[in-house]
């Protein structure tokens, strides 16, 4: 056996499937959700080659609803699955904010980072922010589809608030999404990128950068 390329499982099949379901449906939701705003016609996106259909509210709504179904199913799967497995390594802990500042400083100055667990402190914070925004979008989205089934008329003030929250959460989601991708511009994070595809990471890298990650404990 070649010791140097020994790999450790970082993300199980389930985790990867859920991650990509959320990521792909999230992108579709962003694109179709912005399409539900009267923007693509106004800002001439419809004039781009092949995109003549993007100002059709009927089409973008159907895309939004299908992607919303995948997004909702994946998020609930994620929550129930990790609760039942008692896996909370991505949840933020006290001290994560100050630790994140130290990590960012270390990255900028090229100094040694503090030792990490499975996730970096800033990853845990990003997870919380993304998770919370996703839950807000999901919850308000579900209220929207509920009223669209036509079986109820909800209070106008309640619907106005729900709609505004859904709309305002969208740029926040977009920002976090871009920031998440932006993290992979930083060289230190490169080894983590392929793990969401293959599931595995080099043992050498893990032992060096994530010494607090107890990967043997759980299969």
């Amino acid at each position, binding site marked *: 056996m070649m010791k140097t390329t020994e790999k450790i499982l970082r993300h199980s099949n*389930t985790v990867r499937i859920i991650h990509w379901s959320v990521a792909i449906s999230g992108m579709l939701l962003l694109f179709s959700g912005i399409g*539900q*705003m*009267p*923007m693509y016609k*106004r*800002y*001439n996106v419809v004039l781009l080659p092949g995109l003549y259909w993007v100002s059709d*509210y*009927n089409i973008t*709504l*159907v895309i939004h*609803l*299908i992607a*919303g*179904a*995948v997004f*909702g*199913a*994946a*998020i*609930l*799967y*994620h*929550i*129930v*699955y990790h609760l*039942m*497995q008692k896996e909370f390594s991505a949840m933020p802990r006290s001290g994560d904010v100050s630790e994140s500042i130290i990590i960012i400083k270390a990255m900028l100055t090229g100094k040694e980072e503090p030792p990490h667990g499975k996730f970096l402190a800033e990853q845990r914070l990003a997870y919380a922010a993304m998770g919370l925004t996703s839950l807000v979008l*999901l919850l308000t*989205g*579900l209220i*929207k*589809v*509920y*009223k*669209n*089934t*036509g*079986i*109820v*008329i909800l209070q*106008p003030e309640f*619907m*106005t*608030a*729900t*709609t*505004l929250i859904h*709309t305002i959460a969208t740029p926040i989601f977009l920002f976090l999404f871009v920031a998440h991708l932006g993290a992979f511009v930083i060289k230190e994070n490169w080894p983590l990128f392929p793990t969401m595809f293959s599931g595995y990471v080099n043992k050498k890298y893990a032992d060096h950068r994530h010494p607090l990650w107890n990967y043997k404990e759980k299969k």
Partner: protein
Amino acid sequence: MKIKRRTFLQGMVAAGTAAALTNKVDRATADVSDSSYATLIDLTKCDGCPDQDTPACVMACRAENEHKYPEPDPAMLKPYWPQTKFEDWSNKRDVTNRLTPYNWIFVQKVNVEVDGEMVETNIPRRCMHCDNPPCVKLCPFGANVKMKEGPVYINPDICFGGAKCRDVCPWSVPQRQAGVGIYTKLDPIPAGGGVMYQCDMCKDRLAEGKVPACIEECPQEAMVIGTRSEIFAKAEELRQQYNGYIYGDKQMGGTGTLYVSQIPFEKIDEAIVSKADDPEKAMRVHDTPYNVIDNTSHWSSAALLAPVAGAIGAFAATVAVKKRNKQEDAHDENN
């Protein structure tokens, strides 16, 4: 509002009963109650007020709502960048032959051929106050609302004037005025385009126990307002009396406005389309106006149920894995 709000639970029960009665999910009656307001417009009685320059209903609406009309900021009357146009009706306030931000009802006049004879038909047109209105349900700002009591109205303080409501309304009812509303506060950021205006069923008059202005002023008593059950019964009675037709009960999945006519609506529709300068933009009485919300409701239901499926799936998968691990452990011990 005079009409009592029904509780959520009653609404669900009523929805279930309505669905059971009609043997299909009839969205028309599912989300508005029998005690919501509805209106009836009798095309046999309406004569278009031939003695007046402007029909009485139109005049009444204008007088009633004048104080709500937009007063645009002249500096904001400029193209919606990057587009080169903007919608300004402020110097065309006296237009009464179509819907505008300053004219919420108009009377269509068409000649329809019936048994070789031309019959003049007058059709007062305004918002239908649909039961499952796409203009309301798709407003990205929640500015457009449907009240349980029936009226659909647009809150001018929240409306951005993106005109999505007009795009999804098969009759293009909401009308845009530039230079007013919340978008002017964002200037010079190029977003929004004004405020949308339309008939609100005189909801403030209804709250005071009065009937809508247009209905009150009609000399022919061609229009009536009442509870939904009253109006639907009355429309059916008139239909039988005239051996005629109803429009607005089924279209769009149901609306709060029932037209009753002796002439088939297909014929009226043909006349409207053939008279129009641009048939694409004609305000029709076609049998199949397209309701985005009704036509995507099965996807809405799927999106509503998917999270439950996800949770059950995760539960089942975890239990299955645990069981398998247990079996494997037992197997290991046996060896």
